[in-house]
C-alpha cells in the first residue's frame, strides 16, 4: 500500500534538494566560521605567544639520556660507574658553515683533522636541531681552550654529561668489557628511540651482554631556546607550559667476581701473558676472571685517538685479547683426571690395576717411543698414583685402549669442545678431536685418516686437543662438584635503581657427566688430592702448609715439539715464545670444595707445578682465608720464601 503511494514527484524532489542545499551551505559557513575563529584565536589572541615561539624563542625538545646502571662486584664494590664529564656538541641549524667550523675546532686541537669525515657522516643522519656530540670527555685544559674561543663557533657548545668511568681501570676489563661511541652497526641492533641523547653503548663483556639491563629508557624535556640556541626561562610575559618526562635509569648489576680474589690473581699474573679463572662449583659463579696483559677501558669511553688504537691492536702481547674465553691451549696433563674417569667408565682399567712405567711407551709395530716426562719412569703406578705423579705412560696406555672417539664422547660431557655458555659473548669452543672431526678438518685424503699415535698424544692432553682456560676451570669445577655442572656466569643479581629491589638470578644447571660407579669421582679427586699432598705429588711444593686441603693437577703444554731422539732441553734454552705454557687446575677445600680454579701462563719461565701452581695457591688462599690469616701466612713466609722448586731437568709433567 505504502509503496503505491510513493511515486516520484519531481517538483517536490527538486524543492527538497533546494532545502538540503541551503542547509548544506549553512553548515559549510558554520564549519568555515569555526576554522576562521580558530585562526583568529591562533593569529590574533595568541599571536604574541606564537610569535615569540617562532621568532625569538622556540620550544626545543631535548632528550634526557638515562643513567647507565652500575656494575658492582659480588660485595657491592663499584667497577663501572658514571662520572660527570664535558663534551663538545654541535647543533647543525645554528652553524652556517659546518666545514669551516670543524676545521676551526681541529685547528685549536680539540678534534683530529682525520676524524672530520666521520663526524660529518654522523651529523648527516641527525635532525637539524639535535645537539650531536663531536668530542667526548674534554680535559680541563681543552674546556678552557674552547671557552676562550667560543664566540668563533656559534652552534658548538660544551655540555656536561655523565660518562662511563671504570675506577679500577684495567682490573677485570675482559669480564666487564667497555662502552664506546654508538657505531652504525650498533644502530641496527639497538632501538634508537631509546638512545636519543645517549652517546655510549656496551661493546664487549658484561657491558655488551647486559646492554638492555644497563641502558634504561630515555626521557625528554622541552626547552625554550632563543635564536642563538641558548636555553631561556620565559616566553614574553607568558611562562610556557614546559613538559618534562624523567628518564628511567638502567639497572645495576652485581657481578659474581670477588675483587679481592680478582686483584690478588691480577697481581700474581702481572708481567705474564696469562689467564686465570676461578669458579664456585656450587653454582657456576665466576669468582675471578683474569686475562693479562689488560688495557684501560676508560680510553674507549673517552674515544681512542688513532695512535692509541694502533698501540693497543699492534702490541705483540695483545692486551685486547681475552685469553680466558678466546685463548686455546693444549690442556696437557690437566686432562688426566678426566681421562682416568673415562677409562673407568669404559672399563678399560680398574683403579687398583697397576701399570709398570719404564719411562717410555711403545706401540707394537711402531719404532718411535712415546716418552714419559720422567726419564727413568715411575715404576708401578695404579690410577691414583698415575694422576699424582702425572705418569704419562699410564695415560698413553689407557688412551690407546679407549680410542679417540670414546675419549671424545666422555670428555664432551665435561664441556670440552663446546662453549660453556658463559653470559658474555666471544667464547671459543677449543678442540676436542675425534675421527669425524679429522675427516672434516683436512682436505687431503691421507691427512684425514686417524692414526693410533694421534690418540696416544690425546691421552696427555697434547696433539690436536686444546681448550680455553674457562673450559678447564669449568671441568675442574665439575670434578670438584662430583658431576654437578653449571653454566659459568658473571652476573649474580640485578638491582632496579628506582625501587631498590634486587633480583637474584638463578644458576643454570647443566647435565652431569655419566658415571657407572660414583667411586670414580673418588679416584679422580683422590689423585688430585695426592698431587698436592702425597710425598710423590708433583705440586706438593706449591701447596705446602696450606690451612686447608687442596686438590690440583699441573700441566705443561708443549709449544715446541722435541724430536723423539733428542734430549729435552731446559726451558731457559729456548726462545721465549717457544717456551712451554704452564697450567694448573685446582679446587679447595678438597673435601668440601668452594672454589675451582684454572691458571694458564703462556711461555712460562717454569712448568705447571713450578710456576702456575703458586699462582693458583694465591687465588685459593685469598678466597678461603680471612685477610688476617693471609697476612699472618705471608709474614711467616717472608723470612724464608720457599723458592719455586727448580724444575728438574726434563720435567714437563
Amino acid at each position, binding site marked *: 500500500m505504502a509503496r503505491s503511494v510513493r511515486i*516520484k514527484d519531481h517538483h517536490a524532489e527538486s524543492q527538497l534538494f*533546494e532545502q538540503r542545499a541551503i542547509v*548544506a551551505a549553512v553548515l559549510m559557513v558554520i564549519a568555515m566560521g569555526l576554522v*576562521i575563529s580558530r585562526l583568529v584565536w*591562533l593569529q590574533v589572541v*595568541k599571536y604574541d605567544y606564537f*610569535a615569540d615561539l617562532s621568532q625569538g624563542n622556540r620550544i626545543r625538545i631535548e632528550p634526557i639520556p638515562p643513567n647507565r646502571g652500575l656494575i658492582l662486584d659480588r660485595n657491592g664494590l663499584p667497577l663501572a660507574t658514571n662520572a660527570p664529564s664535558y663534551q663538545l656538541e654541535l647543533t647543525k*641549524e645554528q652553524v652556517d658553515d659546518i666545514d669551516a667550523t670543524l676545521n676551526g675546532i681541529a685547528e685549536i686541537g680539540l678534534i683530529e683533522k682525520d676524524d672530520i669525515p666521520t663526524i660529518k657522516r654522523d651529523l648527516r643522519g641527525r635532525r637539524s636541531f639535535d645537539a650531536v656530540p663531536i668530542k667526548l670527555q674534554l680535559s680541563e685544559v681543552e674546556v678552557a681552550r674552547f671557552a676562550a674561543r667560543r664566540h668563533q663557533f656559534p652552534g658548538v657548545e660544551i655540555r656536561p654529561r655523565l660518562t662511563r668511568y671504570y675506577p679500577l681501570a684495567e682490573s677485570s676489563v675482559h669480564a666487564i668489557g667497555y662502552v664506546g661511541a654508538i657505531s652504525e652497526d650498533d644502530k641496527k641492533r639497538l632501538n634508537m628511540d631509546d638512545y636519543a641523547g645517549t652517546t655510549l653503548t656496551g661493546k664487549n663483556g658484561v657491558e655488551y651482554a647486559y646492554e638492555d639491563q644497563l641502558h634504561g629508557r630515555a626521557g625528554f624535556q622541552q626547552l625554550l631556546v632563543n635564536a642563538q640556541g641558548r636555553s631561556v626561562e620565559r616566553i614574553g610575559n607568558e611562562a610556557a607550559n614546559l613538559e618534562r618526562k624523567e628518564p628511567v635509569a638502567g639497572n645495576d648489576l652485581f657481578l659474581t667476581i670477588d675483587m679481592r680474589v680478582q686483584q690478588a690473581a691480577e697481581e700474581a699474573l702481572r708481567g705474564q701473558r696469562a689467564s686465570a679463572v676461578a669458579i664456585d662449583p656450587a653454582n657456576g659463579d665466576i669468582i675471578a676472571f683474569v686475562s693479562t696483559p689488560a688495557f684501560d677501558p676508560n680510553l674507549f669511553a673517552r674515544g681512542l685517538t688513532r695512535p692509541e688504537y694502533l698501540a693497543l691492536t699492534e702490541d705483540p702481547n695483545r692486551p685486547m685479547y681475552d685469553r680466558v674465553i678466546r685463548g686455546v691451549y693444549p690442556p696437557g696433563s690437566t686432562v688426566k683426571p678426566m681421562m682416568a674417569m673415562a677409562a673407568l667408565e669404559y672399563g678399560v682399567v680398574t683403579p687398583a690395576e697397576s701399570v709398570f712405567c719404564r719411562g717410555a711407551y711403545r706401540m707394537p709395530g711402531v719404532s718411535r717411543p712415546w716418552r714419559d716426562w720422567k726419564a727413568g719412569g715411575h715404576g708401578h703406578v695404579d690410577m691414583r698414583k698415575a694422576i699424582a705423579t702425572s705418569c704419562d705412560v699410564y695415560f698413553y696406555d689407557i688412551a690407546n685402549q679407549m680410542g679417540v672417539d670414546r675419549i671424545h664422547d666422555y670428555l664432551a660431557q665435561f664441556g670440552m669442545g663446546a662453549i660453556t655458555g658463559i653470559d658474555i659473548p666471544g667464547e671459543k669452543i677449543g678442540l676436542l678431536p675425534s675421527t669425524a672431526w679429522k675427516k672434516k678438518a683436512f682436505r687431503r685424503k691421507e691427512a684425514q685418516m686417524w692414526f693410533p699415535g694421534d690418540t696416544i698424544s690425546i691421552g696427555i692432553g697434547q696433539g690436536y686437543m686444546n681448550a680455553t682456560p674457562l673450559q678447564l676451570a669449568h671441568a675442574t669445577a665439575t670434578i670438584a662438584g662430583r658431576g654437578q655442572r653449571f653454566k659459568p656466569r658473571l652476573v649474580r643479581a640485578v638491582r632496579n635503581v628506582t625501587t631498590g629491589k634486587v633480583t637474584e638470578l638463578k644458576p643454570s644447571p647443566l647435565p652431569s657427566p655419566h658415571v657407572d660407579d660414583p667411586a670414580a669421582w673418588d679416584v679422580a679427586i683422590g689423585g688430585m688430592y695426592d698431587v698436592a699432598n702425597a710425598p710423590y705429588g708433583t705440586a706438593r711444593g706449591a701447596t705446602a702448609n696450606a690451612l686447608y686441603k687442596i686438590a690440583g693437577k699441573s700441566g705443561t703444554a708443549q709449544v715446541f715439539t722435541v724430536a723423539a731422539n733428542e734430549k729435552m732441553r731446559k726451558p731457559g734454552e729456548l726462545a721465549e715464545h717457544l717456551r712451554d705454557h704452564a697450567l694448573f687446575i685446582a679446587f679447595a677445600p678438597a673435601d668440601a670444595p668452594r672454589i675451582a680454579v684454572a691458571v694458564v701462563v703462556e711461555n712460562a719461565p717454569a712448568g705447571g707445578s713450578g710456576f702456575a701452581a703458586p699462582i693458583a695457591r694465591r687465588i685459593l688462599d685469598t678466597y678461603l682465608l680471612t685477610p688476617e690469616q693471609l697476612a699472618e701466612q705471608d709474614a711467616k713466609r717472608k723470612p724464608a720464601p720457599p723458592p719455586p722448586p727448580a724444575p728438574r731437568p726434563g720435567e714437563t709433567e
Partner: protein
Amino acid sequence: MSLDAIDSSRTQRTLTGTAQLLLALHLDGPLFIALCMVGAVGSIVLFSASGSSLDMLEAQLMRFALGLIAMIMLAQVPPRIIRNTAPVAYVIGLIMLLLVMFTGDIAMGAQRWLDLGFVRFQPSELMKLAVPLACAWFLHERPLPPSLTSLLVLALGIGIPTLLIAEQPDLGTSLLVAAGGGMVVLMAGLQFRYILSVIGLLVPVAVVAWHFLLHDYQKQRVLTFLDPQSDPLGSGYHIIQSQIAIGSGGVFGKGYLNGSQAQLEFLPERSTDFIFAVVGEEWGLIGLVTVILLFMFVIGRALYLSATAHDTFSRLASGSLALTFCVYVFVNTGMVTGLLPVVGVPLPFVSYGGTAMVTLMAGFGILMSLCAKRKLVSR
C-alpha cells in the same frame, strides 16, 4: 579618447568572446575563473613552501594543466553517458581495490597503488568519483526521500569501498569516499530521524573501529590530536609546529618567502598536507581568510549549480561533488589548525601532489557537464 573607446570595446569584445567560448564548452564561467584563481594562488604558495623549488612548481603547474584538460573534456560528455557509466565505473573500481589488496605495490608503508603495466594508478582516487556517482545513479529513478531498503543497499555500496581503502591503509581517502556517498544520501532528503539514529550508531561503530579496524599509527594520530604533548618527538610535533607557524603569522603574515617556521624546515610536510600553515605564516590571517573565501565561493557556486540542475541524478551527483570538496577543505584546514586529528587529506589545488588534483578537476568537469548541459538544451 578614441583610443580609450577602441580599447574598452576591444576588452568588452574579448570578454564576450571568452564568455561565449566558455558557454560553448559547457563550462561555468564564475566557477572556472574561481578554480583558476585557486590554482594560481596554490602555485604561488607552493613555490614558497617547496623552498623555492622551480622543479616542484613546474610539476604542479603541469598537473594543473592536465587537470584543466580533464575537466574541459569531461564537461563535454553528455550527462546521460555519465549517468550510465557511473555503475560500471563503480564495479571496475571495486574490482581494482580488491586487486590492490592482494597484489598492489607498497609505497611509503601503504598499499595503494595498482600497477597496470603502463601506468601506476590509485583505484581509491577513481572511487572518490565513482561512489557518489553510483549512489546518485542508484537513487535517480527511485522516489525520494529514499526508502529503508535503498538506504541499506547504499550503506553497503558506500561501506565496502570505504573499508577496503581504510585497510590499505589510507584513512584520509576512505573518509572522502564515505563523505562522497554520504552526501548523496543526505542531499536525497534522508529524514532527520535517520540522521540522528546514524549519529547514535556512530558511537558503537567508533568503539569497534578503534579496537579492531584502526592501525596503530592511525590510533596514535587520534591520541596525539587529543593531547599533542603526549608525543612531542613524533606525530605531536606536526601539530605543535603547524600551530606555531600559523599563530606567529599574525594578521598580516611575515611576508612571502619569509616564514621562518616553513623556510627553516621546522614545519614538517610543509609542501603537502601542512601547506595551509605556510599560507598562515607568510600571509597571515588576511591570506588565510582570502583563501577560505575563495574556497567557499567555489563550493557555494557548485552548490548553486547543482540546485539548478534539472534531473535528480545531476542534482545529487553534483551536489555531492560540491560538498565533498567542502569536506576536503574543512578536514585539511581543521587538522592544520588543530581542530581535527591529523588525517592525510591534502588542501585541494594547493598541496603538492598529483593524483588528487586531477581527480578534483575531473569532478568539477563532471559537475559542469551535469549542470551546464541542461541549460543549453532548454535554451
